């Protein structure tokens, strides 16, 4: 209960920290536009832990979940808080896709980009008891099936749904895409055999992989993942083949980044850029990346903005090809 005291005294002790042109004067709020327990939430809480453990900030950090309407609730909140330097929001590709799918008046260019923390991969998972050993087996089975195979993912008209759409196009097959409330739910449904496959992020399925309930077939990327420490059955993330190498030519990655509301000063933005640079350098962060098999890809400033522009264009094309744009 005395966290503000602790934080304040920690700040006095750590008097050596370089003086910034601007410093937060009250608690920093990280808005997570997804439910507690999800991948974005885990990232926010990890960052919260790192900042407080290492006293990177004189003020405490709080995480607030605003999951309603596919993340639009959190994004609207940031839009409304223009000029508030004590708010941050974790973002994924949803920053483009939610406005595209719902026609809500939201646009990332009205926010202030702070930093991109990492990129998240997508993996094709199947039940460990299923006969499929490669993506090729799976696609062949999908072609032969009389009733479309059930493929699970998180929400509708979002990342997972795009991947499934791309798989249908690449393989000339039809799937029954089943949206779930979270990746964890999709993972459970997969291990219970209620769906044939899922397109979860590595972190969302790692528990069931280790428990021997699910098995990764391939990663939707041109490159294998980098983490070579064994995870399950002596296999590591790096041992998962890429989907294109198995004849399934679909690749997709998702950014994970941090934004501030619009209309903040340069100094305020600089403070957070510096803060996240420090976070990205800690051992705890690197542990977290390895545990969640995230692709380390820290960017800020112009590099981040360029990335966002290119990514938005890519998503606009994907979304309109799939017919997911709101009419």
């Amino acid at each position, binding site marked *: *209960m005395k966290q*503000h005291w602790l934080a304040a005294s920690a700040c006095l002790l750590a008097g050596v920290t370089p003086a910034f042109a601007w410093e937060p004067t*009250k*608690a920093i*709020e990280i808005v997570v536009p997804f439910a507690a327990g999800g991948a974005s939430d885990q990232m926010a809480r990890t960052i919260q832990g790192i900042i407080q453990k290492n006293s990177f900030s004189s003020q405490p950090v*709080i995480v607030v979940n605003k999951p309603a309407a596919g993340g639009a609730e959190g994004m609207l909140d940031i839009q409304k808080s223009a000029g508030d330097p004590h708010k941050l929001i974790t973002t994924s590709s949803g920053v483009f896709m939610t406005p595209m799918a719902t026609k809500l008046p939201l646009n990332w260019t009205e926010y202030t980009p702070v930093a991109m923390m990492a990129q998240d991969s997508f993996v094709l998972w199947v039940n460990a008891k299923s006969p499929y050993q490669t993506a090729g087996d799976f696609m062949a089975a999908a072609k032969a099936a009389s009733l479309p195979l059930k493929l699970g993912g998180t929400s509708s008209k979002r990342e997972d749904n795009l991947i499934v759409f791309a798989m249908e196009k690449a393989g000339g097959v039809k799937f029954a895409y089943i949206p779930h409330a979270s990746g964890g739910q999709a993972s459970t449904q997969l291990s219970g055999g209620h769906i044939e496959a899922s397109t979860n992020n590595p972190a969302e399925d790692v528990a069931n992989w280790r428990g021997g309930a699910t098995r990764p077939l391939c990663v939707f990327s041109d490159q294998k993942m980098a983490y070579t420490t064994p995870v399950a059955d002596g296999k590591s993330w790096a041992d998962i083949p890429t989907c294109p190498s198995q004849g399934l030519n679909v690749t997709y990655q998702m950014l994970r980044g941090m934004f501030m509301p619009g209309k903040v000063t340069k100094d305020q933005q600089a403070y957070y850029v510096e803060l996240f640079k420090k976070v990205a350098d800690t051992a705890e962060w690197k542990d977290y990346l390895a545990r969640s098999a995230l692709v380390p890809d820290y960017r800020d400033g112009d590099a981040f903005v360029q990335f966002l522009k290119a990514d938005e264009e890519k998503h606009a094309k994907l979304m309109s090809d799939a017919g997911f744009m709101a009419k």
Partner: protein
Amino acid sequence: MTLQTETEATPRGLSRRPVERIVALVLIALAAIVLYDSYGRGAGWDNGPENGFFPARVGWIFLAASLFILVQSFRSPQDGVFVSYEQLGQVTRVLGPLILFVALIQPLGLYVASSVFILVFMSIVATSRWWSIVLTAILVPLVCFWVFELQFRVPLPKGPLETALGY
């Protein structure tokens, strides 16, 4: 769970039947809005239900139920008192300050608004001494501030006073 006291020597007041009808009409209007919205988005069966399928079906049942309630109100022989004027007066004495409170939250912030609310409410009810009213009006917002703002770090709406004090 209402304590029905209306049967004894019917006091003057709003009678029940018109209120019953107004509510039924409002429900019918709501059902119509739901049906309009659902059919606008597609309420059919396209390899499983479309997104308006359920709201539309529920909307039809809702419409039927509210029409039935409307018809019932014409057929039922008894008519009681919905609320007597005296009771209505009492309710307004609570509802009035409450609406004022909610309206003041935006401009003044929650803490000042609750202070005003307590002052107005307790003076209207007029069962307490003035100093205990003032004390309550000051203490309650302070305690709330301590619990929510300082301890749980739940940010509540704040107004000019809090800004002046540096929060």
